[in-house]
């Protein structure tokens, strides 16, 4: 989302404009969800972190020092909450949730069950393969790409806040990770 637009929406929401709040949720909730997903939390933890982030954002709305950077605020708050969850888990249980890891291989989303025509089935199959290869990437690439694929695309400032990495390193790392993913897809198709 465009930063000046975000800043204006925050200011309108502070003044009581519910439509502005709605626009903020539409524009930035995919980013928050991507950050939570990038950290591989269980579904239950992911849901709670997502809610906590939005509750706190509503609470702090009128106190944001830089309303233009609300996206970065949300991204770094989500990251911090995810890290807290992971910290709490390491003392108790193993964090890998097989349900999350197997998500792409289970054909259980309503979108998929609606697909009937062959063309759509081929497209769905391609998406499923892409997702599997994405999930099989190394942790750094998987995290970065999961955040980058939010819709609308996040700014590098937001990505930096989401993952705690320098803005300058995002471009080169992105290119490298996408190239790896492409290579995996090519290898799979050749096999």
């Amino acid at each position: 989302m465009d930063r000046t637009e975000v800043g204006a929406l925050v200011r309108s929401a502070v003044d009581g404009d519910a439509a502005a709040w709605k626009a903020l949720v539409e524009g930035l909730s995919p980013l928050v969800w991507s950050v939570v997903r990038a950290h591989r939390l269980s579904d239950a933890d992911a849901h709670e972190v997502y809610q906590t982030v939005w509750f706190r954002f509503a609470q702090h709305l009128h106190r944001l020092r830089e309303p233009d950077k609300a996206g970065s605020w949300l991204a770094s708050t989500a990251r911090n909450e995810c890290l807290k969850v992971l910290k709490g888990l390491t003392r108790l249980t193993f964090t890998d949730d097989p349900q999350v890891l197997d998500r792409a291989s289970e054909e259980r989303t309503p979108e998929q069950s609606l697909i009937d025509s062959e063309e759509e089935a081929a497209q769905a199959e391609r998406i499923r393969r892409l997702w599997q290869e994405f999930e099989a990437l190394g942790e750094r690439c998987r995290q970065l790409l999961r955040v980058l694929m939010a819709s609308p695309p996040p700014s590098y400032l937001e990505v930096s806040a989401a993952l705690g990495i320098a803005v300058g390193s995002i471009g080169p790392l992105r290119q490298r990770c996408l190239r790896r993913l492409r290579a995996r897809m090519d290898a799979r198709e050749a096999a």
Partner: protein
Amino acid sequence: MSGTHDDEALPEEGCDDAGFDGDLLEEELRQAAAVLDPVPAELRQLALGAYALHDLDADIAELTFDSLVDALPVRGVPDAPRMLTFRAGGLTVDIEVTGEGLIGQVLPPGPARVEVLGGPRAARPVTVDTLGRFTSDTPPTGPFALRLRAGGQVVVTEWLRA
């Protein structure tokens, strides 16, 4: 999250990006995420409803201590209670969250009204003694905050995940 993977340890294989369109692949990933891992509809709805939590009349009590972050884990005590401290101006609230519920203390000690919030519409009053001590036998699940009225001040603690 310091996971590494063999294929990331390899040296960069040249920088020949001719013919490789990263933007296109990223866009395909974006489409895949929209189908396979979208924001769940109920969560989007909860975020919309969170607007009701924007409250200009209450001060925010900021989290100044969280045992999950600021304390070393106690050896041999895997289920140590979560200790939290919030501050707003001269008011301090200490909370201990356990599997059995929640114990708290408002400082400076004195009468107060305390509610446990669980979202935009869920508020549960708890009993506070004259010295500002309170107990709840319902452990908070998911995001929670406390709303306090003490010494003429209305304060809400920062939202937190129990």
